[in-house]
């Protein structure tokens, strides 16, 4: 390799001496170097340009080859495929305690139109209007001939309707598979199940989401594919639920009530065996929610059992009696003076129909439902202890039942708990709770003194919570309840063989602007059966019942709620597997004589 000597000034110095401009020499040098560099750069670029040329040649060859490959393959029958993210639509079933289906999924189709692909918009509109009576031909035609490129015609159609639409034969009418939620039992257990609707909606599938009830509460569980389609097991018993609904509906009509609710609770496990709220609805076709301003409790969507917060009246008396026994203040036979007048904080405490019972045993206070009697017990117990006791029965918080609506059943409790509050609350006024709260309270008495938290899910065994009263107190209360049915206000509640015990409650309905109605009541019967070994609590509540009996308009629970409850127990107790406790007695009114 020949190197030029590193003598940059070799030519410049003599040039300066001669008076020439050395810049010219510098420029000449730079020009030479440029020529050299250009040559080198060209050599390098030559290779790279060749690479590029080969790349383009190759790429175009590939495109051409691919084109040739495509052109020589037969066009395949177009098959619609899922593009992009599919919406997971599989939703777990809901079953009752015996595995009978309460909610399941059903394959159906939605119908949509793509007007640009339509052959004969007029015929399509006409055909659709003939198949679906609720569609207007003129409006369809307007949609089909307008600017829109995509129109939902029907969200859900039946297989027969699908075939009919198919027969129209227009390529612009298309079907998207849909998975819809089906409630095969119609309105049975409607309030528990709630309902489901479509969430995100695509052409090829739509998301099914729960909108109410357990469907909404357990939405995540039901939608989670990780659960492997394991159904959600509820504590409900479908046949008992259905029977309860029939009886309650009949009772509601007979008693001219505008609403009714019943709850059947297992006292050991807290499982809700049936829960009815009337009027009801069909979850397959959920009505629209009530508009703003209307009374929500009028809507059939309103779940009276867990949302309806009312003063439940004398049914609360048993709590005062049970606590008094529990604290050792009294026993069943302790005599309490219930004579009037009784004035607390400037208010007179009166009895039903201004009766005056005089001296009564604790049992008889419950049996005759004496306000002053329980008031005196409450005064003995004292505000603080009464408050704590009702708290331990869960009377201050919404019930823990796993239905979204349950969280709306916030009880109303006095802000300042005075002696007067104590007395009124002892007979169920001044505190408003739901029927479910009452059921939980009675369950604690019935199971021997343990709080159980009501649940809608199937449990495998007793679920005792903390003890809230002694067994003795619970037994005493149980006896009193039995006596109420045997000889007291709930005598219509006797069901032969099932030893029903219970307490009636008739509370005047409050007016929206304060004060109480004279002629509107909430009639409640809270019962336990069989009372020697209680297994179930049944609460029946009628809203504004009124019945003519013995030439008198009667509204009290003993005339309204109790007979309905008795009928219900008579129907459901055999279904529950309870053996009627029939006393061996005279089989018939005649004696067989052997002549």
């Amino acid at each position, binding site marked *: 390799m020949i190197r030029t000597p590193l003598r940059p000034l070799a030519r410049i110095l003599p040039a300066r001496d001669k008076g020439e401009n050395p810049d010219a020499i510098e420029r000449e040098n730079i020009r030479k170097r440029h020529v050299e560099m250009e040559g080198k*750069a060209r050599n*390098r670029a030559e290779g*790279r340009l060749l690479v590029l040329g080969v790349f383009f040649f190759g790429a175009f060859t590939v495109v051409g080859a691919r084109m040739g490959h495509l052109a020589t393959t037969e066009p395949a029958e177009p098959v619609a495929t899922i593009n992009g993210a599919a919406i997971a639509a599989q939703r777990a079933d809901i079953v009752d305690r015996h595995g009978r289906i309460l909610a399941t999924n059903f394959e159906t189709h939605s119908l949509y139109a793509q007007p640009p692909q339509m052959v004969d918009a007029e015929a399509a509109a006409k055909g659709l209007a003939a198949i679906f009576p609720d569609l207007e031909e003129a409006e369809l035609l307007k949609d089909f001939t307008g600017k829109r490129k995509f129109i939902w015609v029907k969200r859900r159609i039946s297989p027969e309707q699908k075939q009919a639409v198919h027969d129209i034969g227009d390529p612009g009418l298309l079907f998207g598979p849909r998975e819809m939620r089906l409630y095969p039992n119609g309105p049975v257990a409607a309030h528990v199940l709630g309902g489901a609707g479509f969430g995100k909606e695509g052409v090829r599938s739509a998301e099914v989401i729960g909108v109410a009830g357990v469907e909404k509460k357990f939405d995540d569980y039901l939608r989670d594919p990780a659960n492997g389609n394991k159904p959600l097991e509820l504590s409900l018993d479908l046949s008992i639920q259905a029977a309860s609904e029939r009886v309650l509906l009949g009772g509601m009509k007979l008693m001219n009530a505008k609403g009714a609710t019943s709850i059947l609770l297992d006292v050991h496990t807290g499982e809700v065996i049936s829960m009815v709220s009337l009027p009801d609805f069909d979850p397959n076709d959920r009505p629209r929610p009530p508009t703003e301003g209307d009374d929500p409790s009028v809507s059939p969507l309103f779940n009276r059992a867990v949302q309806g917060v009312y003063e439940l009246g004398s049914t609360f008396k048993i709590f005062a009696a049970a606590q008094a026994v529990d604290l050792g203040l009294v026993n069943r036979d302790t005599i309490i003076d219930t004579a009037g007048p009784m004035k607390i904080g400037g208010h007179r405490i009166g009895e039903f129909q201004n009766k005056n019972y005089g001296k009564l045993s604790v049992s008889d206070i419950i049996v005759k439902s004496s306000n002053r009697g329980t008031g005196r017990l409450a005064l003995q117990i004292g505000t603080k202890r009464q408050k704590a006791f009702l708290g331990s029965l869960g009377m201050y918080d919404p019930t823990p039942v796993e239905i979204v609506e349950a969280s709306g059943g916030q009880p109303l409790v006095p802000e300042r708990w005075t002696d007067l509050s104590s007395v009124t609350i002892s007979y169920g006024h001044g505190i408003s709770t739901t029927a479910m709260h009452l059921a939980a309270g009675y369950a604690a008495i019935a199971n021997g003194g343990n709080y159980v938290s009501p649940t809608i899910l199937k449990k495998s065994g007793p679920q005792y919570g903390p003890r809230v009263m002694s067994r003795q107190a619970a037994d005493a209360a149980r006896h009193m309840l039995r006596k109420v049915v045997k000889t007291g206000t709930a005598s219509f509640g006797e069901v032969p063989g099932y030893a029903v015990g219970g307490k009636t409650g008739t509370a005047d309905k409050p007016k929206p602007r304060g004060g109480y109605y004279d002629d509107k009541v909430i009639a409640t019967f809270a019962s336990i059966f069989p009372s020697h070994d209680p297994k179930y609590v049944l609460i029946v509540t009628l809203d504004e019942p009124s019945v003519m009996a013995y030439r008198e308009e009667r509204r009290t629970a003993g005339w309204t709620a109790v007979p309905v409850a008795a009928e219900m127990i008579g129907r459901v107790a055999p279904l529950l597997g309870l053996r009627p406790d029939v006393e061996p007695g005279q089989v018939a009114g005649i004696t067989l004589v052997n002549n």
Partner: protein
Amino acid sequence: MTEMVYGAVPKRAGEPILPKWWRTLDKWSMTCVLILFAIGLLLGLAASPPLASRNGFAPFHYVERQAIFGGAAILAMLLTSMMSPTLVRRLAVLGFIFAFIAMALLPFLGTDFGKGAVRWYSLGFASVQPSEFLKPGFVVVAAWMMAASQQIHGPPGTTWSFILCTLIVGMLVMQPDFGQACLVLFGWGVMYFVAGAPMVLLLGMAGLVVLGGTIAYSSSEHFARRIDGFLNPDVDPTTQMGYATNAIQEGGLFGVGVGEGQVKWSLPDAHTDFIIAVAAEEYGLILVLIVILLYTSIVVRSLLRLMRERDPFIRLAGTGLACMFGVQAMINMGVAVRLLPAKGMTLPFVSYGGSSLIAGGIAVGMLLAFTRTRPQGEIADLLGGRG
């Protein structure tokens, strides 16, 4: 005598423009371009009547417009190809500045024609897409800068051109127009490659492009849907891709016959992005292969001619223009055969479109100007043993 009285007829330096042009021109490439344009008109006759009827024009409204714009484009091409590289560079730099400003003002003055991207200026009788004019201008400016950076004491032109490139790509992404952005980026990359980019850097940049694509995929719904549609092995027959694939298959080797095609009725972009599908359906594989051959010969011939070019500016600018031209055609056809994800890109000279035609004419004119035969100092090479 005459000479004594009137003076000698001044001698022109060099030979007259037209003969010189004709002698040095890459006549093959120009012929290819003209044939492409003719094919474009032919396909326009087939592909555009549905659009015309949808927009309420006479059936061949768009063909007429195509012919007018095409005439203008060819004129522009011829004029540009007659210029000297220096003149081309000067005009292109001016044009670039103009187009750059126009594009910067798009968000304020442009329209989107209801297509979701602000890319156009509406001039009433026609719409102009400044990015189409920006591309060739950018190539020339970047080539100039890069060439300058190769001079001793030259400016850091490569860095400048990269900054400019990033700026333009950013503006295009904002529109959003990922296709043009990729094209600009690609053009710059190719020029940098030919200008002597270090290999390590090239690999690094390839990595960056992948990264950028990933980010665009995860952040832009528009972009992600197209990629998903591409990666999905089954083609949905109701998408543009599905129609295009079906059309190519229907066409087979010799096509279903002139005017018998169906795809033009269902594809909204039959006259622009998917014109090759129309060609394949009506005229068959034969025409498609001819089109591919034409593009290949233009690009490869230009690149080969540039191999012997000594002037770095001419070489770089020529490379950029040829590659952009080729890649645009390649992407357009690659999309139609599902080699590439769906991307709206026109087929140069064949697709309908005023701006793209005229800009394409100018770009090819520049390319022809750069690939003209000129003395490369071969004798000096031989004598001096350089090379």
